[in-house]
Structure formats: C-alpha cells, structure tokens
C-alpha cells in the first residue's frame, strides 16, 4: 500500500517533444486515480514515468514516500497492465501468472497457491494451460490483470487496459476492475482517453492536456466545476455547448445573460461572481451550457426561455436529444476559438462514440414530446447551471 507523488515532473523526449510539463499530483493510499485526456496528451508518459520505463527530465517521483527516480522498474514494486496486455506468447496462462512470482524467487508451493487464488478470482481456472493466442480478448485482459495482482504490488498502473475490448465487455470489466480495486485497496493509476470510463471508475480524475495538468478532482467536482473550457468540453457526453455571451444588469435591475440578441434572466449570484473578476460591464465571456441545462419551456419562468431552430431530434425513449441552432450564435471549441465541430474532427475530443455535431448545439430533454421535431421552438434554460469562463477559458472560481 502506498501513496504516489509527482513533484514538478517534466519529460522532454530526445525528439524534443515536451510530453509532461511541470506536473505535480499526489495519489493517496488506496485511491483510484484516473489520468484522462486526448490521445498524445502525455498521460501514458506520466504512467511510464511512474513505472520507471521512462526517466524524467526533471522533478521527482515518490512511491510510499520514497523517491524512486534512481530505481529501475523491477525495483519499484509496481505492477502494470498494458494496453495490448503484453502477455508472454510463449508461456501458458499459468506460467504468465507465475512469472512475477518466479522473478521474486517465491517458492514453488507459494507460486502454485497464488496462481490458483488469482485464477479463481478472475475465473481463469479452466484456461491455465492455454497459450495467450488461444484466449478471447476478455480472457487475455483478465490474464493481464492477474499478472499484475498476483504479487501484491504497492501500486497498480493501468495503461488503457480496456481499449481493446468491445463495448459490452468494456462496461463489464470497468465494474470488475473497480470493485476489485476497492476490495484490494491497492493504490491505482488508470490511464484512459475515454471520459465515460474516467467518470465511472475514478475516485478522482486528473485531466491532462498537452502535458499539463488541467484539473484534479472527484468526477462530480470536475463535472460540476470545470476549471477551464477544456475540462468543461472534455468531460460530459454529449459535450458542453460553449458560446460567447455577456453578463450585466439591465436598466430594469434584472441580471441577464446576453447571447447575441437574446436576453436570459440569471440568478444574482452569477453577477456577483462575475463582478469579482472583471471590471468592464461589456466584456465578453465564454458561457458553457451542458445539454441538461436545457429544458422544456414551461419548466422555467418566461424570462429564461430562448427561441431555437431545431435541426433534428434523437429519441432515446427515456430522454431526447435535440440538435439546434440559435440565430446569430456559433458554437465554440474548447479552446474558445474554432467551431466545436472542428475540434471534434481533429480528434481533440477522445470520445469516439460522440455523434457528429456539425456545429449544432445539443439539449438533453426529459419531456420533449411537447416539442416540435423541426423548426422554431422555445426552450427553457436553467441559467443557474451555466458555467462562466473568462476570455482565456479559465473558470470563475
């Protein structure tokens, strides 16, 4: 059992790529920490640094309070599950599982016992004498897990271990890994590009972009209070609607959010929040509205309704997704500049299941039968749920 601390970690590869930039992060004992971010953001590098497979350019790593930078992987007592499992193809499942114990010079009887225990735990008993190529994807995944937990390491490192499974198996394994980890109480760092996986599995998430830590927090914190537009855009599916807007008090004294020519009443708290940060009344802000911030019009007062142009509706039974435009408003990407659609297509957003947005805003509605399937309708906006960011994309508290 151990804590893991990264202190001002930097990694520059020989190629000059700056993969990790001054990352400081502590993982508490027994915690499941998920590193999440788009592909190439440096999350795997961070994991490999913890494993000792890469050497940091500067900074420190402590495992259980002990600096490990000078230790090769085999002396760190950490176990790793690889994306492609990395099962030894020439060994049977039994020998794969026994290998870490053999390297620890465990006795034969003990090896036999541990392998048996792990095989039972992961339901691998019937496959012990099979070679990896004879196993299904899910079974291979289990063997990879088994090899990691057979020797009770201080830390588990998991590098996208579920990405090669089909969707159904992935959901099942998510649950299994989570409950296994809770039961064993082993500190774990789990790397994924899939924000759903991150939200459902992590005790806490660390959102990473371009080698920089964006935000660390519980799934709820990160979702409810994204630190910047990137986090807001990356976490949540379908993604947040990000647009430009202004907040001010009208002559009548009502606090409003102005989106183009539209005016929506907002709670007083928002305007106070904003006043702490900006001087100018007219400064443009970035406004994030989650799909569930929209609602049927009769659920909110009249001052919080907006006219939108529905393009199409996706019916899920228990909820509806309405895709729409608002006249004169364009959707922004999470860097606050390009259209959102560009960002999706260039792969910034890791979630492959995301439907193509084509620059449309999306609302998640519970009682949409009241709404027309096409054309102009009124939607309600829960303006108290909107996220405000300054021009740099950073959240107001």
């Amino acid at each position, binding site marked *: 059992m151990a804590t893991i601390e990264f202190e001002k970690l930097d990694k520059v590869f020989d190629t000059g790529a700056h993969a990790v930039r001054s990352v400081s992060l502590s993982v508490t004992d027994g915690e499941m920490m998920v590193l999440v971010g788009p592909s190439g953001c440096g999350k795997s590098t961070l994991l490999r640094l913890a494993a000792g*497979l890469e050497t940091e350019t500067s900074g420190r790593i402590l495992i259980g309070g002990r600096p490990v930078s000078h230790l*090769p992987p*085999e002396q760190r007592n950490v176990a790793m599950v*690889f994306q492609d499992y990395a*099962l030894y193809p020439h060994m049977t499942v039994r020998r794969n599982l026994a290998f870490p114990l053999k*390297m620890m010079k465990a006795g034969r009887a003990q090896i036999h016992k541990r392998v048996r225990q792990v095989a039972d735990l992961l339901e691998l008993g019937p496959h012990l004498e099979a070679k990896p190529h004879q196993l299904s994807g899910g079974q291979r995944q289990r063997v990879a897990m088994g090899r990691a937990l057979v*020797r009770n390491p201080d830390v588990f*490192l998991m590098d996208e271990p579920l990405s090669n499974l089909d969707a159904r198996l992935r959901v099942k394994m998510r649950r299994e890994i989570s409950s296994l980890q809770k039961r064993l109480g082993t500190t774990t760092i789990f790397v994924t590009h899939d924000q759903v996986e991150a939200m459902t599995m992590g005790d806490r998430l660390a959102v990473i972009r371009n080698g920089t830590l964006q935000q660390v927090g519980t799934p709820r914190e990160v979702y409810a209070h994204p630190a910047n537009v990137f986090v807001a855009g990356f976490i949540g599916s379908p993604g947040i609607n990000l647009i430009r807007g202004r907040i001010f008090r009208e002559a009548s004294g009502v606090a409003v959010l102005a989106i183009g020519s539209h005016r929506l009443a907002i709670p007083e708290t928002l305007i106070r929040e904003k006043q702490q940060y900006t001087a100018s009344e007219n400064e443009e802000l970035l406004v994030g509205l989650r799909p569930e911030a929209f609602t049927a019009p009769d659920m909110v007062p009249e001052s919080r309704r907006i006219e939108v142009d529905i393009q199409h509706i996706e019916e899920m039974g228990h909820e509806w997704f309405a895709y729409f435009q608002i006249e004169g408003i364009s959707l922004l990407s999470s860097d606050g500049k390009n259209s959102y659609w560009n960002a999706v297509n260039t792969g910034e957003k890791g979630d492959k299941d995301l439907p193509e947005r084509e620059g449309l805003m999306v609302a998640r509605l519970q009682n949409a039968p009241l709404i027309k399937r096409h054309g102009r309708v009124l939607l309600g906006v829960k303006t108290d749920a909107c996220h405000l960011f300054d021009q740099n994309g950073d959240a107001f508290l």
Partner: protein
Amino acid sequence: MSKSIQNRHLLLSYGLLILVALVFVWPLVFMLAASVTPNEQVLARASGLGALLSRDWTWSNYKSVLGQLEFFSFLRNSIFIVGVIVLSGLVVNSMAGYALSRLRWSGREAVLAVVIALMVIPYEALAVPLFFEMTVVGWINSYQVQIVPFIANAFSIYLFYTFFNSIPRELDEAARMDRASPLQTFFHVAAPLARPAFASVAILSFLMNWGVFLWPLMVTRGPGYQPLPVALGYFSANKPVRWGDIMAFGTLMVIPVLMVFLIFQKGFVKGIARTGIKG
C-alpha cells in the same frame, strides 16, 4: 492463353529448369561417382554416371580415408572448433544484439555504429594483422586461435538486433514490471521469442565456419589442429593424385553440411534473403 501454348510454355520451363539443375547437381554426382571408383580408374571413367553404375563399384576409397587415424583427428578438430564458435557465438552475439535493441545505455549508439561498420569487412582482410597479433600472443597452432577471434561476429549481432527490434517492446516492459532484471528479461522472454533468429544465426555460422580455409592454413602447423578443408587442400596436393580417395574425403566432409542444410533449408534460405532485402 490457349491450352496448347500453355503446355508448350510449361514444357519449355521444365526443360530449362532440368537443364540448369543438371549443371548444378552434376559436380556433386561426379564427386560421389568418383568416390566409389578405384583410384586409377577415376580419370578414365568418372565423367559420367558410368562409374556409379559400373560393376566394380568399390568402398575401398572410403576404407582408405577412414583407415587413416588422421581423418578422425581432422573431423574432431572441425567439429570442436565449429561447435564452440557456433554455441558461444549464439550466447555472446544474442546478448549484444539484445542490449543494442532494448537497453538504453551510454555507448549504445557508438557500439551499434561499429557493429554496422564491421559487418562488411570480411575476416580475410584482417587475416595478416590478426596473424601477427596471434603470433605475438603465442596462440599459433592451437584450437583457441581458430575459435576465440570468431565468436563475436558483427553480422550475427546485427541479425539478432534487427530480430529483437521486431518483437513488441511491451513484452520486455511487462517483464521489467514483473520484476525481471534485463538479463532475466532476455533469458525468459526475449530469447525464447527469438528462436528463429537463433536458428538462422546458428546455421549461417555453422556453414561459414565449416568451410573456413585461409585462416587455419595460416595459423596451423601440421595436422594436429587442422580442420577438414585444410586437410583436404594438402591431401589434394599430394602426388600422385589419388582422385578416388580425395573424392571420398570430400564426400565425408560435405555430408554434415548437406544434412544441416536439408534439415533447416527453409529457415536458412529465409535468413539469407532477410540479409539481402534490407540492403
């Protein structure tokens, strides 16, 4: 294509193939034929299958070659020298190839560059200064002079290096995470996966060293440490020429080579082809 043209094409192809095959096979048949022909008859008769088919087919040449104790001494020398070179070469060169492919160490780039540069240099080019070096060390006329300099081999190292490069790096990393040291990773994970490379290198190295001629000619004095090819060279220079005996000697010498080749043919040809494609 019409049936008849196709048939004619087929006939032509096979005709040509068989003709060429005869050119390549005939000298071997010729040797076999001569080896069972009485010495004094060889020149007159051996040009054809006649010798093999004739009635006074004889084992006497083999008896006379095998009857000399020296033949077994040459055979023992060859087997010992080549065996030690091949086996120790597999260990030494595969470890180096692994270190170059997988470990990150100061000097890795430099060693790799040296290996690649040395690959094209044939040992014959170094024979004279190496001969000098061995004379200074006092190794002339010994086993070690024929073995030790040829264990480390740039070409074998490079073959292992490229093969290890083709094995997924994750497997090594997994072994390291499973607490194996680099040496343990090599023995338990990388080497078992590199079996084809070990086979290629072993066969290539066996065939190269089995035929080595110039070096033992330079560094041996008398039959004590001579391998088969040099012995054959001296034997063939004796007057009067005993063709039957020479061919029997040659046949005995080529049998191990043919066996190794025919058993491992596929992997062997693949190994050679692999060396050529990268060029």
